[in-house]
Every structure is written in structure tokens, then in C-alpha cells.
């Protein structure tokens, strides 16, 4: 009997000690981790807006150039020239694709796209997210509807060349861009009018 009580007490004490240690470590590290995540997010917003910044100087660059506001319940980031950026997310082929889309002042021309997280097929689908490919999107118009076409087919201002090996990822990205752009434009327009 005594053995059993000791056994239960031992497990309880050991569990409590480790739990306390974990809570302590979490309380100590989570503010720092939170800061890293925030810096990463801010960096992706700055990059999409085309504002140059230095590593370690992200917060200052963000505070000096970007203003956060809520439009119709959605978070929007505005640069000094009136360009806007917002977070986008949607399902890709393998997993969720998330990132930041920046539009020019006219709310329909793409200023920049940064991808924060994606798990598309390495070497095939994820080639869409190479900087050279994403740079092609700059200056394209998202409205009335945006199309990512097979390479060499894009001719209008709302069309862009995709990547041969990444047809499905291109379709997914096209869907995300169209849906998110519409959602945010409606929200912003609703406030303006």
C-alpha cells in the first residue's frame, strides 16, 4: 500500500515539477518568439510594398513607412504613397499558401507579392514562388479578373505567364489572388463610399 501511494505521489510530483519548468520556459521564450514572428510578418509586408529595409531594422522601417488600419473588419497596411498591402491565404495543391499582396493606389494594379508559407511540390509547383516568377506579376491588373496562363500566352494587362511544371499551383494561386483582392477591395470601397 505504502509503495503504491509513493508511486502515485512520485508521478504527481515529477509531473508538476516538469510542468512548472515548461510553463516557466514558455513564459520566458514566448514574448521573444512572438517578436520574431511579428518581425517576419512585417518584413513580408515591407517587401510586398517595395520598401527597402535592413535586417534588424525592420520595426523602425515598418513604423516609419506603414500605417495599419481596419477596413470593414479586415486588416490593411498602407504605405506613404497610398499603396495598400494585406495578408492573403488559401489552399494550394498540397497545403495552405499564405502571403502578402500589395496593390498600387488604384487598388487594382499589383505592386508586389510575397509568399510567407507554402508546401507545394518541390521543384515543380514551388517554382511559381521563385522571385523571378513573382516579379512578373508586378504591374498586372487584378480586375475584373486575373488569369495565370501557360507560358507565352499572356498578352493582356490582366494576364501573366505561369510556369509549365506548376499548372495546378498556378490555378490555386490565381484563385487565391482573385478571391482575396475582391474581398479587400469590397471592404475598402465600402468604407470610402
Amino acid at each position, binding site marked *: 500500500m505504502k509503495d503504491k501511494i509513493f508511486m502515485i505521489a512520485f*508521478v504527481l510530483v515529477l509531473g508538476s515539477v516538469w510542468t512548472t519548468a515548461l510553463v516557466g520556459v514558455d513564459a520566458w521564450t514566448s514574448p521573444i*518568439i512572438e517578436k520574431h514572428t511579428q518581425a517576419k510578418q512585417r518584413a513580408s509586408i515591407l517587401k510586398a510594398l517595395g520598401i527597402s529595409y535592413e535586417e534588424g531594422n525592420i520595426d523602425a522601417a515598418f513604423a516609419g513607412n506603414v500605417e495599419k488600419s481596419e477596413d470593414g473588419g479586415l486588416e490593411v497596411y498602407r504605405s506613404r504613397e497610398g499603396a495598400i498591402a494585406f495578408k492573403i491565404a488559401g489552399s494550394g495543391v498540397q497545403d495552405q499558401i499564405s502571403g502578402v499582396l500589395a496593390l498600387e493606389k488604384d487598388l487594382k494594379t499589383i505592386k508586389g507579392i510575397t509568399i510567407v508559407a507554402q508546401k507545394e511540390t518541390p521543384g515543380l509547383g514551388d517554382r511559381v514562388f521563385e522571385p523571378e516568377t513573382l516579379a512578373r506579376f508586378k504591374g498586372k491588373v487584378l480586375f475584373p479578373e486575373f488569369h495565370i496562363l501557360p507560358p507565352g500566352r499572356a498578352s493582356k494587362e490582366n494576364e501573366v505567364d505561369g510556369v509549365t511544371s506548376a499548372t495546378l499551383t498556378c490555378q490555386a494561386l490565381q484563385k487565391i489572388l482573385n478571391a482575396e483582392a475582391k474581398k479587400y477591395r469590397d471592404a475598402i470601397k465600402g468604407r470610402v463610399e
Partner: protein
Amino acid sequence: MALLKKMFGARGGKVFKNGIWSDHPVCATTLGICSALAITNKVENAIAMSAGVVFVLVLTAIIISSLRKWVPGRVRIITYMITIASGVIIVDQVLKAFFPTISEAMGPYVGLIITNCIIMGRAEAFFIQNRTYNSVLDAIANGIGYTYALLAVAVVREVLAFGTLLGFRVMPGIWQNWAVMAMPAGAFFVLGTFLWITRTLADIEPPPGA
């Protein structure tokens, strides 16, 4: 051997030699095979994984061997699990907070240290029965053994699969990469050859019935 005896005492020297050679965790007891196969495609991954395993192994050795007189026999496995899991979570959090780039590169591997059977295996086979000094020696020796096994496999695989070593190009330009070496199948070939060579050299008997 004489040198090891001088450094760590008679018992300690034997413990150390067992860990790095005659009772090698990967070669002799075939523990830790999962990670030796999964993350040895690049040398830098192997180094990061080894560092994590060595840290958790030593931490477990200190805690389990100091508690060994009080741990009730029926809950000893739970004790190992709680200790190992908590240690790994702490490592993961600290890496995320202070070394975010390393943490990102290692991705899910840090969490997988929990399931590395070397740690459980040594806790059950050694730490629970021996005093702290010898347990820590055993942990370090096993850690070294695990590290060089991983490095040996990773060096062969990275050179053959990518033509690089730690990211630097070492093979001539005409070198054709062996795609199979980057895949799990390649790991089996290399690890199998490694086990064959070391087992023959260390004169390790196959388990009965094999």
C-alpha cells in the same frame, strides 16, 4: 583503451569505449536507425540533429541517474518519457527564441528527438542502474557514437547525391548526381554498408537467431 582508462577510471573507460565502439548505439544495438536514415541526406542536418540528441541524452542521464534510487520500478518508463519530452520541448523553445534560423532549418526534427530510441534505450539500460558520473560518460560516449555514424552516412550521401559537402562543391563539374542517394533508399544502402564495416571491425556478434 589505456588512455580512456587514464582519463575516466577503470569503469568509466570501459563505459566510454562501449558507447563509442563495442556497444555502439547505431551499429551494435541498432537504435536511432530512424533518424540515421531520415536526416542524413545533408551533413548540416546530421550535425544539427546530433547536437540536439547529445544535449537531451546528457540531460536525461543527469536527471534519471540522480533519481534512480527513488524511481518506482512500475513507473520508470513514464519517468523517462516525461523527462525526455520536457527536455526536448525546452530545447525547441529555446532554439525558436534565440536561434530562429537554426530552428527553421531543423523544422520538425527537433520534436522527433523525443522518439529517438537511443535516449529511451540508454535510460532503461544504463542511467537507471548507474551513478551520475558514469551515466553522463555513457551519454556522451553514445552521443559521440551516434554523431559519427550520422556524419559518416551523411558525408557519403551528400557527396554522391548533390556533389557537395556542407554546401560547398567538392565533385568535379562533370559529376552526375546520384538521385537515389538523396532518397530514403540511398540511406538504406549506405547505412547497411556502414553497419557491415563497423560490425566486422568491432567484432560485434549478430543477435541470437539472426
